[in-house]
């Protein structure tokens, strides 16, 4: 089979002369119809009688499938455990459904508000916000949203946290006169009976599922299971807002808190909802359970003014009475946002579009710039130090060169943390270098050099760590430069310098290019070494990414920074591939 497999018409890439011989033999055997019995004009047949073309195609297909089968396990493994996480990170840098998930009613209402006149949003926005926020606070997700919005406007986080605690006040204020009217309004069982309707009454399961869906988005838990409650269709039509509020309460209480609905007092949201519904509801025809309670309330409704949600919010915190908070929510309500990327380049998404961050928060562009500049410096010093070594290794006798190569490979093989800790030992103020300098009398004891926790420390340590990555590609290129060229140049009368600069150096440029890109790529993504020897002045953008992942928890921004860094690296790798080819990467 292997003889045939290499002979398809589209497979001119015969891998070896050996293959070519086989191929020739096979063709000679089969391409001469007169010697073998097939009809002169008919298709050429293989040994088993099928047309040769088909037989070859089958063999080729078989070989391709076999190769793919061998690759498949690893490919799937890498795709799932590496490519998917990276793709997920890219998605996270633009994803922003937290606002619309946590405030599902407020977001559409806010979308209709025109913020440009500088006024507050209309009452329906406040109303939607009240119910959304209450639910989020019960699910303990309002602080998360507050943290998210705090990236955009400082102070929102604490505003949300405090408001979450004070949202009960509106309901409590209404409950007082209600209780005076009929004590049953403050009890659990009457509410349950009122909302469930009579036994066998039609249930509004659609409303139940709608609320369940919306709660799922807020709590991010499955919330599956029977809750033993659904609002009766009659109540749902008569008191829509109240039914909604009670259903939310019912789902959450049963599934999250695991309490008995008939014995748990409803959330405070049901009271303002009830009052609002009752302003217009016609309860005269209602005959379900607790009809008396409702009718009594309807009769005395004049004593219950419709709840003012905006006033309630203003009571909670004066910030709610200012348009800025609402503008921020409105601006960041979209589910896919460029906001993190704008943040990553020291800009922010404002109601008026992209704008620069305040001066005091502008650090990331500077950090990107510093990462690039320091990587360039490290690359440059690696070239300066690596070139002589590579030249020496390439021009020494093989045996000596191999011994010296060990001095290059040993650091290469030594743990990164060992080398970093070694530099910490060397560079610190009570470290080896300072001690030696003091002992020699070059530096006074009280004015020891500060060589660590600054840019100098990072550059020295990283140059040392990345130097082998520069020397090895340079060395492998220089090994291939024929020494006869140099001798020829010299015999033609060139000076040493001319020989080097005009003959040797141009031939070694590919090695410099390969090493430089490699070192540069490795340098801009470095994290450990700058973290340990860099202090505050010598850190890179990757340290900032780690900071946002583990300390500030602004994962969207971390993902955006990572995406930008990844784009830069991939671009550089594309160049690397063009210059040297990724297949030519050699190790050790």
């Amino acid at each position: 089979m292997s003889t045939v497999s290499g002979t398809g018409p589209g497979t001119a890439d015969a891998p070896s002369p050996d293959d070519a011989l086989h191929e020739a033999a096979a063709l000679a055997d089969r391409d001469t119809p007169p010697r073998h019995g097939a009809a002169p004009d008919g298709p050429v047949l293989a040994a088993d009688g099928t047309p040769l073309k088909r037989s070859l195609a089958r063999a080729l297909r078989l070989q391709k499938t076999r190769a793919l089968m061998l690759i498949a396990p690893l490919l799937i493994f890498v795709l799932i455990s590496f490519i998917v996480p990276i793709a997920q990170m890219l998605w996270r840098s633009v994803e922003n459904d937290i606002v619309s998930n946590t405030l599902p009613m407020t977001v559409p209402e806010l979308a209709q508000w025109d913020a440009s006149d500088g006024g507050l949003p209309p009452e329906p926005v406040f109303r939607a916000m009240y119910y959304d926020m209450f639910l989020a606070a019960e699910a303990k997700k309002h602080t998360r949203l507050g943290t998210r919005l705090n990236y955009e406007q400082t102070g929102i986080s604490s505003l949300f946290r405090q408001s979450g605690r004070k949202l009960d006040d509106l309901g409590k204020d209404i409950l007082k006169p209600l209780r005076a009217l009929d004590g049953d309004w403050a009890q659990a069982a009457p509410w349950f009976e009122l909302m469930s309707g009579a036994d066998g009454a039609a249930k509004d399961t659609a409303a139940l599922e709608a609320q369940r869906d919306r709660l799922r988005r807020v709590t991010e838990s499955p919330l599956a299971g029977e809750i033993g409650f659904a609002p009766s269709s009659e109540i749902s039509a008569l008191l829509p807002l109240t039914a909604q509020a009670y259903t939310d309460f019912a789902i959450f209480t049963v599934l999250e808190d695991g309490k008995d609905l008939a014995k748990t007092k409803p959330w405070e949201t049901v009271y303002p909802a009830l009052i609002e519904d009752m302003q217009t509801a016609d309860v005269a025809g209602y005959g379900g359970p607790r009809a008396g309670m409702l009718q009594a309330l309807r009769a005395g409704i004049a004593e219950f003014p419709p709840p003012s949600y905006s006033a309630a919010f203003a009571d909670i915190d004066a910030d709610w009475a200012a348009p800025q908070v609402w503008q921020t929510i409105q601006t960041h309500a979209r589910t896919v946002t460029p906001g993190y990327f704008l943040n990553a380049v020291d800009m922010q998404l404002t109601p008026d579009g992209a704008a620069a961050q305040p001066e005091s928060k502008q650090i990331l562009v500077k950090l990107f710039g510093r990462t690039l500049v320091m990587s360039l410096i490290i690359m440059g010093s690696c070239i300066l130090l690596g070139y002589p070594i590579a030249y020496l290794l390439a021009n020494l006798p093989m045996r000596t060169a191999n011994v010296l190569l060990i001095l290059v490979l040993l650091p290469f093989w030594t743990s990164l943390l060992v080398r970093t800790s070694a530099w910490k030992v060397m560079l610190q103020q009570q470290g080896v270098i300072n001690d030696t300098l003091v002992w020699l009398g070059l530096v006074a004891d009280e004015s020891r050099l500060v060589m660590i926790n600054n840019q100098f420390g990072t550059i020295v340590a990283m140059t040392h760590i990345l130097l082998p990555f520069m020397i090895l590609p340079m060395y492998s290129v220089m090994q291939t430069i024929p020494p006869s060229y140099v001798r020829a140049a010299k015999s033609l009368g060139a000076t040493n310098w001319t020989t080097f600069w005009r003959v040797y150096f141009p031939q070694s440029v590919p090695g410099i290019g390969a090493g430089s890109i490699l070192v540069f790529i490795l340098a801009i993504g470095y994290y450990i070494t700058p973290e340990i020897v860099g202090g505050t002045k010598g850190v890179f953008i990757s340290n900032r990414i780690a900071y946002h992942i583990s300390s500030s928890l602004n994962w969207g921004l971390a993902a955006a920074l990572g995406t930008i860094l990844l784009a830069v690296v991939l671009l550089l790798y594309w160049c690397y591939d063009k210059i040297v080819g990724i297949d030519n990467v050699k190790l050790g």
Partner: protein
Amino acid sequence: MSIALAHKPGTQFTTAVTAAFGAFAGLLVGTSQGSALIGIVLGAVALGALAWALMTFDLPERMARWAILAVVAALGLLIGGIAGLFVGLIFGWFFGWLIYWIGSGRYRMKLAPYLTPGQVLWHYTFRVICGAIFVFLITPILVVMPLSFNAEDFFTFTPEMLRFDPEGYSLKHYRDFFTNNEWQRSFKNSLIIAPIATVISVSLGTLAAIGLSQSHVPFRRAIMAILISPMIVPLIISATGMFFFYSQIGNWMEGTLGLNKTFVGYVKVVLAHAVLGIPFVIITVTATLVGFDRSLTRAAANMGADPVRTFFKVQMPLILPGVISGGLFAFITSFDEVVVVLFVGSASQKTLPWQMFTGLREQISPTILAVATILVAISIALLTTVELLRRRSERLRGMSPG
């Protein structure tokens, strides 16, 4: 030899060069003793005079060099104690060698006779520069070793150590490493995670490399790019992506499958490390397969061996060196990795590098240096193994091992 002798430089030249070196040495000694200027003058005069005397009176070389060594070492002992004695020994040996190396023209012996003095000077300057760079490369690693035997909890040489006082040295940091629970646990974690990750990446990687080296692979470049990508993408980005991904996977495994939390933690770290090791396996094994003579598998098939048998009996023994060195790369990648484990793992998966990292950040103890020394020893062993394997595979392929 005759050429070299013909080029024997004049006494004046030898005197001048040696005096220059003497001035430099005098500068070092002088600054440490208080006056640089006096040091320079004294050093230049002393060395110049010595060279002139030796060259003029043509003393027997061996005796003269021993004498210089003894005198300079004694001077060193007088000035700087034990440490001074060592510096003196080095200086004495160096100057004895230098005077005769220049004086008898030995320095030109290995060079082409037509080189101008400037070129000779450049030749040796270049060597000295390269030597300095080698020192830069290797010193940090060498410095760590003696410091790990420090009897004090300092990251630097104590006066006792410089006096070579046995009191200044101890094995206490090693003892700490081998008895301290935290270090031992992290070491054990590393020894659990790295081999498993290596086995996964080597087995999958070798299979895929064999698949990739077949003659007709559709989308070979794209597949190669995907498989190499864990090496290309900066670690911090891989770590960020894996952090999000594996926390979800972990929750799923704990919640839905009901697995033990610690076990899930290990699985996450092992999988993450296996991915990072794969490019190294792919690269080394495909490189080995380039030199693999495929007529051998044909011969095996011809003689009736099925593909599996062919693989284990013919192909595997031949590509084994590549597989092993790929495995070593994968092992060292995992063993040395800290960023990803920092993001993906939890405290119970703390590996050795992680422990070192926290140690370095909070500067707890020089036990780190003892660990570093052990790790250097391990890497020397690994380097030797890879080098031996490389030579073996080149010999098998009929190339000179060099």
